[in-house]
């Protein structure tokens, strides 16, 4: 009998655990350790944040799903990894700390044969003074990172709309809250949904809407930009994105590191080193991500956290972490099996793995402040990694000596449907496909990507796709009939 422990129950962890459970014989065990009691379809948080959906529509309780699937579910957070066991035993284990109300704070050792780190990010609000404390959102801004945050954001938005209906002008500031943020796509979706909602409420003329981003150009998305085939040209996502903002009368601030948030005002440093301020009545600023702070210990109790994890807390896997300068970066630097080099029974998927380097070109201000979008690895790639690693582990449990499946971001594409406003006939979204995610200039000279697989268009059809995907992926996550047939 083998035991697979999955740390994290988000998109990648849930995918890995459920596929592993489906593929493994019943004499093997699958355990999920996650501090959350609910599963959240995060892409729809955007709609909760503008009142287009309720919080209850984007979450469901995990316990009944795991009980039905035969997965051992522990509502707890993993705090330590002991990959060599301890002085009394060679069996590797993790230390978990329960978060459910009955056993809150209790610690337990949980042994494993295989371990998947799918812990996702720590929402590092504390990295920017005034944005929050540690992982807690502060009082000056809102967030759509969790369903609770999004619900709160909608409440604040409604308060602004009431003021605007009373004749008051309001400034909306949406974007990234630090120079090292990822997930610009979420901010992109939220600003367009805000604009759409204000228009529907009849108060758009009372709003100034500003996008602030650490991207050096609109449409970088942490992927160094994308080129689409459009009207006979290979057109940059810069043009595509700028066009959308210009059409809707929204301003943008580029290459910004927000270094302080106060009531109604942010201070930021730009790539040219200048310091500026922007006032706001409503601000949604994405926090930077970090690893969740897991520690690792050797058999003798010595701290080996630095061996397993990069300084930002993400887990090192089979990537090339010595690629050096931007000019030397290659698509092959990116991990394929997601296996840790030191311990063949440990894997990391989704946001939890340490990227070898950025995708976008690293930039910093003359003052030395890095202002650079970090690589996105959420959604479809995250789920594909979870499934591939689950398949590898199942094969290894059944006798394979090495991982049998790969999920390299340099060999996979991503489909992204970014909402620009909700409505059965009035909604729009940007449907984008990119292949591969990591540009490969050796294979695809020119733009680094396959122009036949890299596309983008805005329209109602893309909104329908996004809305349908909401139901399809929640169906899949609930393991309802046919769930294994639904692609990641």
């Amino acid at each position: 009998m083998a035991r697979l422990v999955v740390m994290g129950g988000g998109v990648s962890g849930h995918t890995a655990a459920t596929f592993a459970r489906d593929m493994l014989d019943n004499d093997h065990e699958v355990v999920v350790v996650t501090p959350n009691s609910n599963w959240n379809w995060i892409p729809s948080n955007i709609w909760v944040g503008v009142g287009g959906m309720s919080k209850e529509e984007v979450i469901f309780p995990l316990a009944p799903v795991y009980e039905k699937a035969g997965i051992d579910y522990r509502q707890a957070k993993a705090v330590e990894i002991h990959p060599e066991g301890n002085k009394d035993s060679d069996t590797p284990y993790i230390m978990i700390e329960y978060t459910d109300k009955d056993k809150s704070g209790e610690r337990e050792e949980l042994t494993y044969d295989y371990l998947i780190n799918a812990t996702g990010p720590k929402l590092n609000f504390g990295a920017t003074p005034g944005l929050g404390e540690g992982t807690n959102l502060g009082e000056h801004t809102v967030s759509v990172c969790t369903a609770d945050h999004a619900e709160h954001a909608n409440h604040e938005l409604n308060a602004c709309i009431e003021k605007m209906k009373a004749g008051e002008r309001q400034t909306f500031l949406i974007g990234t809250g630090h120079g090292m943020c990822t997930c610009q796509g979420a901010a992109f979706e939220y600003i367009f949904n805000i604009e759409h909602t204000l228009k529907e409420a009849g108060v758009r003329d009372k709003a100034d809407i500003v996008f602030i981003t650490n991207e050096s150009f609109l449409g970088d998305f942490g992927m160094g930009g994308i080129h689409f085939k459009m009207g006979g040209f290979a057109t940059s996502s810069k043009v595509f994105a700028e066009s959308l903002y210009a059409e809707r009368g929204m301003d943008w601030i580029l290459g910004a590191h927000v270094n302080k948030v106060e009531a109604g005002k942010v201070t930021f440093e730009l790539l040219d080193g200048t310091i500026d301020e922007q006032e706001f009545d409503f601000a949604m600023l994405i926090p930077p991500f970090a690893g969740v702070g897991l520690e690792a210990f050797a058999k003798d109790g010595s701290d080996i956290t630095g061996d397993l994890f990069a300084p930002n807390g993400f887990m090192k896997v089979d990537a090339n972490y010595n690629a050096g300068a931007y000019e030397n970066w290659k698509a092959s630097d990116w991990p394929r099996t997601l296996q840790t080099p030191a311990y063949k029974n440990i894997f990391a998927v989704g946001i939890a793995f340490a990227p070898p380097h950025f995708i976008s070109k690293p930039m910093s201000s003359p003052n030395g402040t890095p202002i650079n979008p970090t690589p996105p690895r959420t959604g479809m790639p995250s789920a594909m990694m979870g499934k591939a690693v689950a398949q590898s582990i199942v094969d290894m449990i059944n006798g394979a000596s090495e991982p049998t499946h790969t999920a390299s971001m340099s060999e996979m594409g991503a489909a992204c449907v970014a909402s620009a406003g909700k409505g059965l006939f009035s909604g729009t979204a940007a449907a984008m496909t990119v292949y591969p995610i990591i540009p490969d200039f050796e294979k695809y000279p020119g733009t680094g990507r396959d122009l036949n697989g890299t596309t983008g268009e805005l329209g109602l059809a893309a909104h329908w796709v996004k809305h349908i995907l909401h139901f399809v992926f929640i169906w899949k996550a609930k393991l309802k009939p046919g769930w294994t047939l639904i692609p990641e």
Partner: protein
Amino acid sequence: MASKHLNHIEPYSPQFGTMVPLSGQKFLRTCVLWQIVRFIAINIRMTILILKSHH
């Protein structure tokens, strides 16, 4: 002749340096019949992408 379908764009502002959609493009974005065609096209495109991405 005035372009009634365009709002004023401040010259030399960042918005002035990009393309903006005209009325025909805007109409097509929410034209149900055309969007049904695009819905099928997007789904085919994404299916191909998914098939290419699984190893």
